[in-house]
C-alpha cells in the first residue's frame, strides 16, 4: 500500500471538544487526532452523538469548547476540503432532481459562484457515478432509487467533490450486503489514494476488519485507538452497556454511572 506523502502530521485534530445546542453539551471531552490516509470508525449506540460529532466538525452545530483543526488550521475556513455524507433520512426523495444533478452538486464549490459547470465537471460526475457503479441510473430521478442506490449517489457526490477528508454518517445502514461490500471496497481504495476517511457505523464486525483506528463514543469519548486495543470487554460495555448516560427524573438528574457494580 503506497500512501501519498502529505506535509501534515495530522489531517484532523480534535482538541477537548464539547458541542451541542443549549446549555448542555450533546458530546463532550472529545479529543483525537487522525493521520492522513487513515480510515477511522466511529462507533456507539443510537443517540451516542456520532452525527453530532460529524456536524460539530463541519460547523453545523455550535462548538461550546475546544478546537478542531484541519491540516493544522481552523476547520471552518476550509470546509470545501471536507466531504460529508448525510444520513439517508435527511434527504427529500421527492425532490425533482436527477441522479446526475445530485452528483454535480459535489462540484459546486469548485465551479464557484456565478459559473456553470464545465466539461471537466461533467467528466468528474461521470467518473464518480462509474466508481459507485450507477452509470445506468444517471438520468433517473432520485425517488426511483433503492436505499442502497441513493446511498451510493450521495457517496458519488462526495467523490465528485474530491475532498481531503470524508465524513460519512452511516454509509452502510439500510443497504443490502452487496452494496455494503462495494461501498467498503471503495472506501479502502480512497484510503490507498491518501484520503482520510471517517465513518460512523454500528456494524462492529466490519469495524474490526477494516479500520486503522476506532473511536468509541457515548456522549463522551470512551476510547480511541487501534481496533485491537479498543475492542475490550470493558470498553464495549461502557460504550454500549447503557443507552442513556443521563436519565432525567423530574427535577433530578440521575447519572447512570458505569462504574457501579464493576
Amino acid at each position, binding site marked *: 500500500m503506497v500512501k501519498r506523502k502529505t506535509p501534515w502530521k495530522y489531517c484532523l485534530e480534535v482538541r477537548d471538544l464539547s458541542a451541542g445546542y443549549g446549555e448542555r453539551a450533546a458530546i463532550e471531552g472529545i479529543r483525537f487526532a487522525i493521520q492522513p490516509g487513515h480510515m477511522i470508525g466511529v462507533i456507539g449506540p443510537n443517540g451516542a452523538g456520532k452525527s453530532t460529532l460529524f456536524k460539530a466538525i463541519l460547523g453545523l452545530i455550535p462548538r461550546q469548547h475546544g478546537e478542531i483543526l484541519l491540516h493544522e488550521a481552523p476547520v471552518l475556513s476550509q470546509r470545501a476540503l471536507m466531504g460529508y455524507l448525510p444520513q439517508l433520512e435527511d434527504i427529500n426523495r421527492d425532490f425533482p*432532481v*436527477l441522479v446526475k444533478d*445530485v452528483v454535480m452538486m459535489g462540484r459546486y*464549490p469548485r465551479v464557484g459562484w456565478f459559473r456553470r459547470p464545465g466539461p471537466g465537471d461533467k467528466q468528474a460526475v461521470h467518473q464518480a457515478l462509474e466508481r459507485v457503479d450507477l452509470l445506468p441510473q444517471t438520468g433517473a*430521478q432520485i425517488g426511483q432509487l433503492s436505499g442502497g442506490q441513493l446511498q451510493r449517489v450521495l457517496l458519488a457526490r462526495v467523490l465528485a*467533490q474530491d475532498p481531503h477528508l470524508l465524513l460519512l454518517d452511516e454509509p452502510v445502514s439500510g443497504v443490502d450486503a452487496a452494496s455494503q461490500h462495494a461501498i467498503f471496497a471503495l472506501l479502502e481504495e480512497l484510503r490507498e489514494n491518501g484520503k482520510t476517511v471517517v465513518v460512523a457505523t454500528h456494524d462492529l464486525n466490519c469495524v474490526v476488519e477494516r479500520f486503522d483506528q476506532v473511536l468509541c463514543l457515548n456522549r463522551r469519548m470512551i476510547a480511541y485507538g487501534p481496533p485491537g486495543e479498543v475492542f475490550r470487554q470493558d470498553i464495549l460495555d461502557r460504550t454500549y452497556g447503557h443507552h442513556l448516560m443521563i436519565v432525567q427524573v423530574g427535577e433530578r438528574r440521575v447519572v447512570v454511572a458505569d462504574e457501579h457494580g464493576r
Partner: protein
Amino acid sequence: MIDFLIAPFEFGFMQRALIGSVLAGAVCALVGTYVVLRGLAFIGDALAHAAFPGVVIAYLLKANIYLGATIFAVITAVGIGLVSRRGRVSYDTAIGILFAGAFALGVLLMSKIPGYTVDLFSFLFGNVLGISTRDLLLVGALGAIVALTIILFYKELLLLSFDPTTAEAMGYPVRGLNYLLLGLIALTIVISIQAVGIILVVALLVTPSATAYLLTVHFFRMMMLGILFAALAAVIGLYLSYYLNVASGAAIVLVSTCLFFLVLAARRLWRVRTPQA
C-alpha cells in the same frame, strides 16, 4: 372565434393587463418552485399580508405603492429570518403574530380614509385592468431583477433547497442564501399585488408550481412548466374577466386552481390506465 379571442385586446388597458398578469404569473412560478419544494407557502402568505401597511402608507402619502410594499415586505422577510434564529416562540407562531399584526395595521390606517372601500378592494384582490404603463415598466424591472438573481444563484439555490445541511457543510453561507430567497419572495409579492392582490398572491405563488410538480421530476422543467401554467391562467382568467365581467384577480387564481385539479385528475386517470409494476 378569432374575433372572440382578439376583441378584448383591442383595448390598451387589456393589453397592459395581459402583459402585467403574465409577467406576474411567470415571476411567481419561478420563485414558487422554491416555495413549493421548501414548504414556504405560509411564509409567502405572511409576507404578502405584511406588505399591506406599506401599500396603505404609500397611498396616504401619495407615494408609489410598490415602493411602500417593497419596504414592508423586505423588512418582514428580514424579521422572519431573525425570528427563526432566536426566540422561544416557534417559527410559524412568530410568523402568525407578525403578519396578522401588520395586516391589522394596514386595515386600521385604511379605515381612516373616507370612502376607502374601492381602493381597499383593489389592494386586497388586485386590479390588473387598472395597471398603468409606468407600473408595468416598474413590474417588468422588478421581474427582471428576480429572474436575473435566480439565474446567477441557480445552482446555489438548488443545493440550498435540496440539501441545506450539505450546502452548509460545504461552506456556503446558508443563512445569507435563505435571506436571498426570502427577499426574492418579497419582491415577487410586490410584483403580483396589482395582478391578484395581497390576499390571493399566495395562490399564484404556489398553484402553478405545484401543478408543474405533478408532471415532472426535473427541477428546471418544473420551473418552465410552472411559468406555462401561470401564463395560461393569466390569459384565460383575463378572458373570463372580460366576457363575464368578473374580478380579474379572482378569475386568474380560479383558473389556476382548476388547472391544478385537472392535471391531478388526468394524472390519476393515467395511473389507473397504466398500472405500475
